[in-house]
């Protein structure tokens, strides 16, 4: 069944080279017509949005995108920044550290963005931020990882819109120790974000007189979790869980299947259920358990006008789901970070009189000078306190209880509860 070899191809090498040459010429000529013929200042401010459009962070990427578009619309409707409109340039990093660094490079060199922003997953932040530092691109991450404040990164990387894991778990430990139990088993994803939980919560609960009896690390891309649960010691009083990735629903379901009717107390971070409907089958056992929430998903009885405004702008109903599709549950505990970060960028650019990339260091200095940010339409999650030396913001933390299938806020930790000593002073570093 073999055909004789066709020795004469239909395309000749000469015609192939000609076509390629024409193509290369057209590509090289492209930037010539695409530039602004007007003066520099009427060009829009370009914010590079590093979106987790694909990969394990895709659910968050979708909601980060919607929130960022809504925030940019709000800013532009209010006149923009320094009389210039804001334009979001979105690139997909695939929730991958290597792609993240490439995307940062594209923002700085190809797209001529003024700043980069929006990265969530901690391993991508750690992979991308060094490149932003090398290219001197202000890089505003919305990540919750402790790496910004730990001094691991650089002066160009800031996290002014979302609190970090160290402050979150520090605020949770007293509640867990006093209300739920002293012997804790931790289940967390086996990468930077999960390690932050492991390290900081262990220290915090030991300071309360408690003890972590087991630390179970799960690979972030894992799909089946039952094989990890037998490692939970019999004398566990509290299960502390935080999981990320597309399989979080499987994780929480299999946790319930493993224990059956005789479960210990459970304290979870809402990360384990972001973008997942609390009413999914298999999650009934969560009734009565507690969750940390960065921002309460369900509208609470004392909802502020700022939260109402935020929900309407992004298109989220009182159950935290999309107004167009009640099954499309949002990542409400994290996405406010994009909204607040964009408003911090606006405030920083206005305070520094930002005119273009030559003012990037002035922008960073202006943001470092910020301190308190009151609760407002620009900061709907609650008031904030920014630490210019560590580039990290601090805010209120919320604990909710699952009551009749909804998350009702049971405890609020004040900003003071979440503070910890500085580990770095980025302002002493040069640009």
């Amino acid at each position, binding site marked *: 069944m073999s055909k004789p070899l066709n020795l004469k191809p239909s395309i000749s090498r000469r015609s192939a080279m000609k076509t390629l040459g024409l193509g290369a010429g057209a590509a090289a000529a492209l930037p010539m017509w695409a530039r602004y013929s007007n003066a520099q200042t009427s060009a829009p401010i370009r914010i590079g949005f590093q979106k987790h459009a694909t990969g394990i962070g895709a659910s968050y990427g979708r909601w980060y995108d919607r929130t960022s578009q809504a925030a940019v619309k709000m800013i532009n409707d209010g006149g923009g920044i320094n009389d210039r409109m804001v334009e979001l340039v979105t690139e997909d990093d695939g929730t991958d550290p290597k792609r993240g660094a490439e995307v940062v490079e594209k923002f700085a060199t190809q797209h001529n963005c003024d700043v980069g922003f929006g990265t969530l997953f901690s391993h991508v932040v750690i992979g991308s931020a060094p490149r932003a530092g090398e290219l001197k691109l202000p890089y505003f991450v919305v990540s919750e990882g402790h790496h910004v404040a730990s001094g691991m990164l650089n002066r160009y990387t800031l996290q002014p819109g979302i609190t970090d894991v160290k402050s979150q778990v520090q605020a949770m430990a007293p509640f867990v120790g006093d209300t739920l139990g002293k012997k804790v088993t931790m289940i967390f994803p086996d990468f930077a974000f999960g390690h932050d939980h492991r390290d900081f919560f262990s220290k915090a609960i030991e300071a309360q007189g408690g003890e972590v009896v087991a630390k179970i690390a799960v690979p972030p891309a894992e799909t089946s979790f039952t094989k990890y649960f037998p490692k939970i010691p019999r004398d566990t009083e509290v299960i502390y869980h935080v999981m990320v990735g597309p399989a979080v629903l499987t994780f929480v379901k299999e946790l319930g*299947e493993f224990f059956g009717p005789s479960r210990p107390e459970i304290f979870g971070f809402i990360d384990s259920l972001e973008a997942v409907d609390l009413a999914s089958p298999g999650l009934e056992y969560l009734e009565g358990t507690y969750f940390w929430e960065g921002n309460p998903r369900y509208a609470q009885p004392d909802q502020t006008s700022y939260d109402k405004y935020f929900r309407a702008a992004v298109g989220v109903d009182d159950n935290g789901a999309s107004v167009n599709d009640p099954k499309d549950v949002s990542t409400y505990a994290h996405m406010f970070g994009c909204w607040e970060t964009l408003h911090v960028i606006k405030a920083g650019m206005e305070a520094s009189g930002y005119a273009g990339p030559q003012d990037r260091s002035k922008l960073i200095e202006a943001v470092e000078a910020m301190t308190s940010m009151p609760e407002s339409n620009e900061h709907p999650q609650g008031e904030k306190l920014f630490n210019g030396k560590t580039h990290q913001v601090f805010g209120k933390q919320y604990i909710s209880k699952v009551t009749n299938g909804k998350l009702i806020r049971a405890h609020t930790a004040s900003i003071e509860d979440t503070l910890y000593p500085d580990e770095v002073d980025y302002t002493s570093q040069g640009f």
Partner: protein
Amino acid sequence: MEFGPYLMLATLEGAVLAAVLALMASGLSLVFGVMRVVNIAHGEFYMLGAVFAWWITSAIGGDPALAFIAALVIAPVAVGAVAVAADMVIIKRLNYDPERTIVATIGLLYIIQQLTLMTYGADARPVVAPFNTRLALPWIEWSGGGLQLYWPWGLSVTSYKLFVMAAAVVVLTGLYLMMTRSRIGLLMRAAQLDSETALAFGIPVERIYAIVFGLGGALVALAGVLIVPIQQAHYLMGGDALLLSFIVVIIGGLGSLGGTVVAALLIGLSDGIISVFFSPTLAKIIATLLVALVLVFRPQGLFGGKSR
């Protein structure tokens, strides 16, 4: 958990994995056995089975059991149709040349994956299992002078996981019976033994190939439909499936259905037990090491015949 119940839990988890693996790998083994081509897009048919199951169950709605049965019937047939189309449009035109088929099916993998990403999206979406009661399992201990049953904390299985194991056994038995007892099975085995002589006898070999490719796709899609109530349907789930299918088929022997089942049991159970007692990464390392050993010492696989 004590060792005994722990081992039982690990074995059950491994058995579920082995059941799904056996279905996945049998499709690949069948395609290679009859057509002698390797389908790199095999994992994507698994993903398509899961995604179609989600589409069908959300479109039908209502009682989860009825919706799931509909998905169980319709999704493999739909994916089989996609596979037949792929064979007739792509692979046939390459004259079933092995190297070109590998390259073409890699392209098919990316096309299917990206089309799914563009339509279904990047989220993992759940499908409700038709039934899912938790069954606490007993263990025996020696106490009070005799053997007694007790129910260890955490030792359980769900009725749905037992159903997956049973379904895999039924389907594979049906496949074996079809290959050995039915006329279409006879035609497939004839085409496998010597396609030129089969053609001379008037057997429509190219049509048989299309049917075999479709059947291979349908089998792996069935595995996807069965797994989707346990995990969720996600557009990247084909990658792991492809790797594991290849490991099983290489160890069991390309073209041998019995070898595939034995290898699936071996890999599934060892993965389950090693994952539970040590770590999942170690389990994957051992599985890949086994493949390397088989390729060095017994390249035709444990049960494979000599290549013709």
